[in-house]
Each structure stands twice: as structure tokens, then as C-alpha cells.
């Protein structure tokens, strides 16, 4: 029994389809060059020094007390943030799915889940410092505490928890909705109390999902650069240590080796999450809820839970609101009236704001359609087509999800500053806008691909097959059938890519050159210097841009989206 002939025929068919062939080759080149190669070069560089193959660099960095400390710090923070975010996320999800609540509270929940998506990563750190820092609004003026030190371990933990719990909330909400209410009713019917139902039915069913949420947050936390940078003070995590190793100690080999260590940690977590927990979650919770759930109306349950969640939600929202308000105060911490627009003016008159916004805006605007299109093409190939390199393409684009921005940044420095394999080839792109665009694309590609894949999985494969069968070539099938059917997913991918790009910092901060001013880098610089008002002004405008583009997308989908019609068919 030999499968030789079909493999050979499939190859022939592929070769007879030049568009498909070219696309695949280009994709593989792109993924190899900009994802695999930079990561590989990190490993090569840290193992292969001037005296040949050796573990010297690793020995050296592990000899550094600061590095060992950074590993402990990172894991400690990640663990605690993972647990806290999962618990708060679970609380929110449970209340939303199980408890009857007022419409207004539902609105609060929506805002909370939306805010982290549209805001730059370190906004919460900024407002944390402004509210609870040494000259914080709450600590100093409300409570009269003059020496509150928010910088360090607890600062990072609180800020990261507030940033990441909405992700857990959204994940767990989806899972809870899939639990068939009749299972819980059966348990109630046999005499279990609500608490007993939760501990014996709901919780065990949810357990793999909770593990999944925990690990996702854990990975996000240890990959996070912006928050530890701003609020960490002397408490360094791996991401900030790597950054300082490059910018402060000018030790690129050491940074490369550190990046390898960080990458190994995230990859290991990612592997567990992706190949163990995600499957287990899907296995326990595949059923669709057979009918609507009877919501809990018992006041002794609803009132405390609603109040607790509302308070948490209001707190989070307040943290975000603090940023635009901070930009309006004459001097934060000293003078609160009269409100002024002078910081916004200064953004443009003194601090090159126009150039910063233009650079960020233009680069992100170029990167987002590329990302959206690329991720749709990858999803199409992965879901709908059969070819040899498919596994490779899927694996690499998913792998990119587990790569912390800092690691990618170091990889690009090592990989492209002196050209490919330090030969000078392609070194022209280093320091240009092009490499920034490529980083934007690579950083947003996994999210886009993931949503594209799930959108395409819902479309019957035979729709494309029938177009193919009627005589359409691969390009025609993609443009006339696939793309129109996932227009919504494409549009939201476009905006997500744009928002992610314009708010990105971790990889970018290592690669940006003085010829480009990027908003996030500017905000980071001003906040580091303690110029909070100007940082807030920058951040406010940035949030306005990102929120505006999300609104615009929703509007476009509403008027031009096809999916509404398509969905009715199903």
C-alpha cells in the first residue's frame, strides 16, 4: 500500500495553480524570515560566540544576580496575576451569566471588557501612579498619605490584574454559556443548594477552562513590558531586564541569551495551554445550552454580587478616566483648577506631537491591511486547502502568539542590524519604517489568524469547493467567495491590527530610531521622566484615535457587512 501516487498528483495539481503556489512560497518566506529566523538567531548567537560553540553566555547571565532575581520576580508576578485575574474574571462571568442584574450593570461590564482592547498597554500604570503614587490624588489628597510607594511588586500585580482580568472574563463567559442548564437543574432537583451546585457541577466542568484562563494570563503577564517598565521601579522582570541589558549595559549577546530563557518559559506554558488545556476545555464543554438559564433572582445573592462587581467595574473605569482628566489639570498633584488645554497644546507645539501621531498613524495604517489580508489568506489556506506546508504555516503563525514582544525585538536587532546571519544582506531594512511595519504585522498576525480561522470554520467547506468545481481558480475562489463571506471578520481584523499596532510598544521600543517618533514610545518616555500631564495628553489622544476607529468599524459593519444575511441562512 503506497500513497505515492496521490501525493504526486496533489503536487502536480498544486504546480498547475501558480497563484496558490506563489502565495504559499511567499508566505513561507515571510514567516521564516520574520518569525523563525529572528528567534533562531537568538539561540545561535547565545550558543555560538567568539570561542565557538559553548554555554558561556548562559553561564554568564545565570551568574548575574539581577537576572536570577528577574526570573523569580517574573514567575511570582505571573503566578499571582494569573490567579487573581482568573478569580475576578470568574466572578464577573458568573454574575453576568447566572445572576439577574440591572441593565446599567450590564453596560458597565461591557465597558470594562472593551477598555483594555482600545487603550495602550500602560494606561493603567499611569493612572495607578497618578492616583496612588507619592503625589497621588487618592493617597495624598484624600487620605493624606505622603510616602505611599506604589512602585514595585504590588504595583505590577494590581495593574496587570486590572489589565488582564477582562480577558479571563470574556473567556469564562463563553464557557459558562455553553454549560447546559439542565445539568445544574438536575443537581438542584436532587436537593443541592446553589453553592453545592456551583462546587459540584459548575466548577468541575469549568476547571480546565479556568486553568486555560490562568495560563493565558500568566503568559500575558510575563510577556508584558510596558507596565513593569513604568510601575516596577527597582522590581525588574525578565522583559525589562532584557530591555535594560540592551539599552543600559549594551550587552547584546547577554540580552539574546536572556530572551531565549524568556521565550522558553512562554513556549512551555503555551504548549501546555494550547495542546492540553484548550483540548480538555473543548472536551468537557462542547454541548450547546439547550435552552435559556433561569437567572438567580434571590436578593441575598444578587445584591452583594452585583454591588461587588459594580464597585470593581467602577474602579477600573475610574482608572481609565483618570488619564484624560489628568491631562486637563494645570499641574498634577499640586494645582487642580482651572482646567486647561495647555498640555494638549504643548503636545503639538513643544513635543512634536503632530509628527508622533503622523508616524504612528501612517505606519499602523500601512501595517493593518497587510496584517488583515495576510491573516485571512493564512486562515483560508489552513482551513480550506490541503497541501504539504500547511502544518508549517499554521504552526508558525500560532507560535508567534507565544513570542513576547521583547524577545521579538531582540531577535530583530540580532537578526537584521548586521544583515541576515551578520552578512550584511538585507541590513538595509534595519532602522527603517519598513521593519517597524513588519513588526506590527508579525505582532498582530496571530490574533487575526485565530479569528479568521474560527470565522472560516463556520462556513461550509463545500461552498468554496463548488466555486472551485465550477471552474474558478484559487484566487477567484478567495476573492469571489471566501472574502465576501468573512467580510466582517476581515474588517474587525483590520481594526484590531490597527489598534494593536498603534498601541504597541514592547518590540517597537527596541527597534525605533530617532527618525521615527511613535506615540507609545513618547508616552513611555514622558511617564518615566515624571511628566504625567503631558503623558496623559498623549495617551488621551491615542485612546480617542483607537476608540474612534473601533466605532467606525462597527458602523461600517452595520451598513456594509454581509454576514448578517449569511448568518440567517445557517
Amino acid at each position, binding site marked *: 500500500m503506497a500513497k505515492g501516487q496521490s501525493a504526486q498528483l496533489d503536487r502536480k495539481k498544486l504546480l*498547475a495553480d501558480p497563484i496558490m503556489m506563489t502565495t504559499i512560497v511567499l508566505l513561507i518566506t515571510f514567516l521564516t524570515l520574520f518569525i523563525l529566523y529572528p528567534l533562531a538567531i537568538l539561540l545561535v548567537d547565545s550558543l555560538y560566540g567568539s570561542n565557538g560553540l559553548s554555554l558561556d553566555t548562559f553561564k554568564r547571565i545565570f551568574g548575574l544576580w539581577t537576572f536570577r532575581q528577574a526570573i523569580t520576580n517574573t514567575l511570582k508576578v505571573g503566578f499571582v496575576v494569573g490567579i487573581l485575574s482568573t478569580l475576578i474574571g470568574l466572578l464577573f462571568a458568573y454574575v453576568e451569566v447566572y445572576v439577574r442584574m440591572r441593565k446599567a450593570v450590564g453596560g458597565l461590564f461591557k465597558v470594562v471588557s472593551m477598555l483594555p482592547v482600545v487603550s495602550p498597554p500602560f494606561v493603567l500604570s499611569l493612572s495607578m501612579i497618578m492616583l496612588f503614587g507619592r503625589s497621588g490624588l487618592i493617597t495624598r489628597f484624600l487620605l493624606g498619605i505622603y510616602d505611599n510607594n506604589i512602585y514595585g511588586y504590588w504595583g505590577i500585580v494590581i495593574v496587570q490584574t486590572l489589565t488582564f482580568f477582562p480577558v479571563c472574563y470574556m473567556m469564562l463567559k463563553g464557557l459558562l454559556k455553553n454549560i447546559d442548564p439542565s445539568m445544574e437543574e438536575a443537581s438542584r432537583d436532587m436537593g443541592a443548594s446553589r453553592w453545592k451546585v456551583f462546587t459540584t457541577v459548575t466548577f468541575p466542568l469549568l476547571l480546565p477552562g479556568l486553568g486555560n484562563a490562568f495560563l493565558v494570563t500568566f503568559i500575558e503577564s510575563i510577556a508584558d513590558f510596558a507596565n513593569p517598565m513604568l510601575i516596577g521601579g527597582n522590581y525588574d522582570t525578565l522583559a525589562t531586564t532584557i530591555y535594560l541589558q540592551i539599552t543600559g549595559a549594551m550587552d547584546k549577546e547577554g540580552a539574546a541569551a536572556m530572551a531565549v530563557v524568556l521565550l522558553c518559559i512562554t513556549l512551555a506554558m503555551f504548549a501546555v495551554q494550547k495542546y492540553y488545556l484548550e483540548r480538555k476545555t473543548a472536551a468537557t464543554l462542547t454541548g450547546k445550552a439547550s435552552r435559556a438559564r433561569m437567572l438567580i433572582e434571590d436578593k441575598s445573592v444578587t445584591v452583594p454580587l452585583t454591588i461587588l462587581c459594580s464597585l470593581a467595574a467602577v474602579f477600573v473605569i475610574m482608572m481609565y478616566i483618570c488619564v484624560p482628566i489628568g491631562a486637563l489639570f494645570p499641574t498634577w498633584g499640586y494645582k487642580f483648577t482651572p482646567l486647561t488645554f495647555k498640555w494638549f497644546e504643548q503636545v503639538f507645539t513643544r513635543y512634536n506631537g503632530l509628527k508622533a501621531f503622523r508616524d504612528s498613524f501612517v505606519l499602523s495604517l500601512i501595517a493593518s491591511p497587510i496584517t488583515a489580508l495576510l491573516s485571512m489568506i493564512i486562515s483560508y489556506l489552513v482551513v480550506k486547502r490541503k497541501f504539504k506546508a500547511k502544518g508549517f504555516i499554521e504552526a508558525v503563525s500560532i507560535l508567534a502568539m507565544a513570542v513576547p514582544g521583547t524577545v521579538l525585538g531582540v531577535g530583530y536587532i540580532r537578526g537584521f542590524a548586521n544583515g541576515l546571519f551578520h552578512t550584511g544582506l538585507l541590513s538595509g531594512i534595519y532602522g527603517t519604517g519598513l521593519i517597524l511595519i513588519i513588526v506590527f504585522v508579525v505582532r498582530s498576525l496571530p490574533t487575526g489568524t485565530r479569528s479568521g480561522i474560527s470565522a472560516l470554520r463556520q462556513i461550509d467547506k463545500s461552498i468554496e469547493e463548488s466555486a472551485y468545481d465550477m471552474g474558478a481558480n484559487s484566487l477567484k475562489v478567495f476573492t469571489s467567495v471566501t472574502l465576501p463571506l468573512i467580510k466582517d471578520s476581515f474588517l474587525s481584523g483590520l481594526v484590531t491590527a490597527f489598534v494593536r499596532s498603534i498601541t504597541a510598544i514592547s518590540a517597537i521600543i527596541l527597534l525605533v530610531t530617532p527618525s521615527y517618533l511613535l506615540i507609545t514610545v513618547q508616552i513611555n518616555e514622558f511617564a518615566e521622566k515624571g511628566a504625567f500631564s503631558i503623558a496623559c495628553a498623549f495617551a488621551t489622544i491615542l485612546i480617542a484615535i483607537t476608540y474612534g476607529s473601533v466605532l467606525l468599524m462597527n458602523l461600517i459593519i452595520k451598513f456594509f457587512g454581509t454576514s448578517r*444575511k449569511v448568518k440567517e441562512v445557517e
Partner: protein
Amino acid sequence: MADKRVKEPKGVKLDHISKIYQDPKTGKDFYAVHDVALDIVPGSFVTLLGPSGCGKTTTLRMIAGFESPDEGEIYLGGEPINALTPNKRDTAMVFQSYALFPHYNVFDNVAYGLRLRKVPKDEIKQRVTDILALVELSGMEQRMTNQLSGGQQQRVALARALVVEPGVLLFDEPLSNLDAKLRVQMRTEIRRIQQALGITAIYVTHDQSEAMSISDQIILMKGGVIAQMGSPTEIYYHPNSEFVADFIGECNFLKGRVASSTFGQTVVQLPTGTAAVNTEKAYAPGAECEIVVRPEAILIADEGMLPCKVELSCFMGSYQNYHVRVGDTLVKITDNCPVNKKIYNVGDNAFISFDPACAHLL
């Protein structure tokens, strides 16, 4: 109306094709289709019939080009097509899920293939209008596909495949999403259109009555290989195995030994008596054999060939359904038009008999 096609229908030849898949659980390779050899006459209606997993859909998808055979060659109109991609093959497929383009209206769905072939606009309009008339959907051109009923969607899918005048038309269980009544109506419709256009059609189904009612030829498959092929009557009355007999309608099997045999008729010794069966060849006396006889071919009466005891008696409207015990064997009987006949009740003793011409020997 375009009742005669301009293009000639094409024949399809499967030259000993096989397809190997990997079992996802064990990781072992197995034959999903094994050594299937077929020659389909141009203009004929051929059905690939079998239980799920028998390889019928895989065979169809290999003809369409979505899968590549591991052994053998496929010919369409005499040309080998193994290396051609689906879009280069002169086939058109009607899918189980209809696979209509939800973002197009009926007209654009049907016109899709013609536009790809760069047919002039006027001609597209003419041909789409004609074909929609043929499938009785005139006036529906501007409807979106989600505004159509299941049967109408099926007609659009059929029209979309027909309008490009393919050399061969492929059907992948096209009626399985329709309700029972509509299914019967649509299959008659499909047969009518196929005959009106004189097109070659290959039709996959697991429904034996569907296969019987529309095919010129049935290819019954099991476990990746052809179990039997022939016209519906051949397969119904002369099944070559217990599987075929049982898959095509209900069947009774009576085990015994050949008592005497001549060209034309064989007498079989059964545990509780003897029975005669018309046979084309002579069997060696004493050989083990099995009589195959359909439930509607058996008569139940106060006297006859073999004694029996009634175990189930059930009025079904157009017939009386009996299960009777003949020796150790359970025999099913369909007694049509029971109005003026004697009805036997559970526990009654009776006799069964059948016409030698209506039975078959395995």
C-alpha cells in the same frame, strides 16, 4: 427551452482506482476505496450506493478532483484527468448542503460558472433564464438564497451545475437534507431533467429506494470495494451476496442443501421441507446453499410448502406485516391488500410458499 444540449455527454472510466487514508486513531493506512473499476456510458444515470464509510463519496470526490487516487487512473470522455485540478475538469457537482453562495441572489448563483467562462452577457441571461425555467424557478432570479425553501435551494444548486453543460454531472447525496415527501418529488424531477438533457450523471446516496427509482445502473459498494453492479432489477432480484440482498430492501434467507438441480430449476432441502428455485445454472447436489426471497414474494396460507408459526402480525394499512418462524429461521412476510384475506394472529400455525421464479439461490 433548452431541451437538447449542444454538448455531447461524456463517459467516465475508473481504471482500477484506489484511495488510501490514515486512520486518525491508530495511525494505520487503510483503503477507503480499493480497486474500483467502472465504465460509465455517456448519457446514463449511475448511482453509487452503500452504507456510510463504504467509499462512495470518496470515489465521487476523486472524479471531481478534490481527492487524488493513490492507484489507477480516471478518464473523462476518454482523456486521463488524474492531474487536473477540479476547476479544469468538465464536471459539475451538486453538494449535499447545496453550497449556494449566500452573498449572491439566485441569478448570480446560477450565472457564476458562465461568468467564469467569459460567456457574453446576453447569452448568460438567456441560458440562466432557460435553465431556471427547466427547474421551475422562473421569476425567482432576484431572491436571496436564504429566502428559498430547502427544495428551491436544491433546484438552484441543480440549475447552477446544469447551466455550464458539464460533461458529467455529480451528485453528492443531494436530497438528504429534504423531508421525505419532497425527497420523492425531487428525485423524480432530477431523473426527468437528466433524461431531457441526455446528460451523464453520477449520483451518490445511501438510500436504496432513491437509487432504485432513478438509476440506469447501481453500483453497490461496501468497505471500499464494489459489492455488485447492475440495473436496479438485476440487483433486486439477483443479489450476489447476503449483504447486497439485505441492503437493497428487506430479504429472507433460508439455509439448506441442494437436493437436485438442473439448468432452470434447483430443489433445495430445508430442515422443515423442500422448496424449488429457478436457477440459471446447475448446482452440485448436497452443496450448502441459501434461498433469497423477498417478503412480498411469500404467501401465507392454511396450506403450502413449509409449515410456520406466526410471531408477529401487524396491520400497516396497505399491507399486513408478519414475522413467522420456519424451523429456526425468522421469515418476514408482506401480505399486500389484506382487506378480504384471512388474517393470522400471533401463535397461529400456517404454511408459507413462494413462486420459484421470485426466489434466488446464493
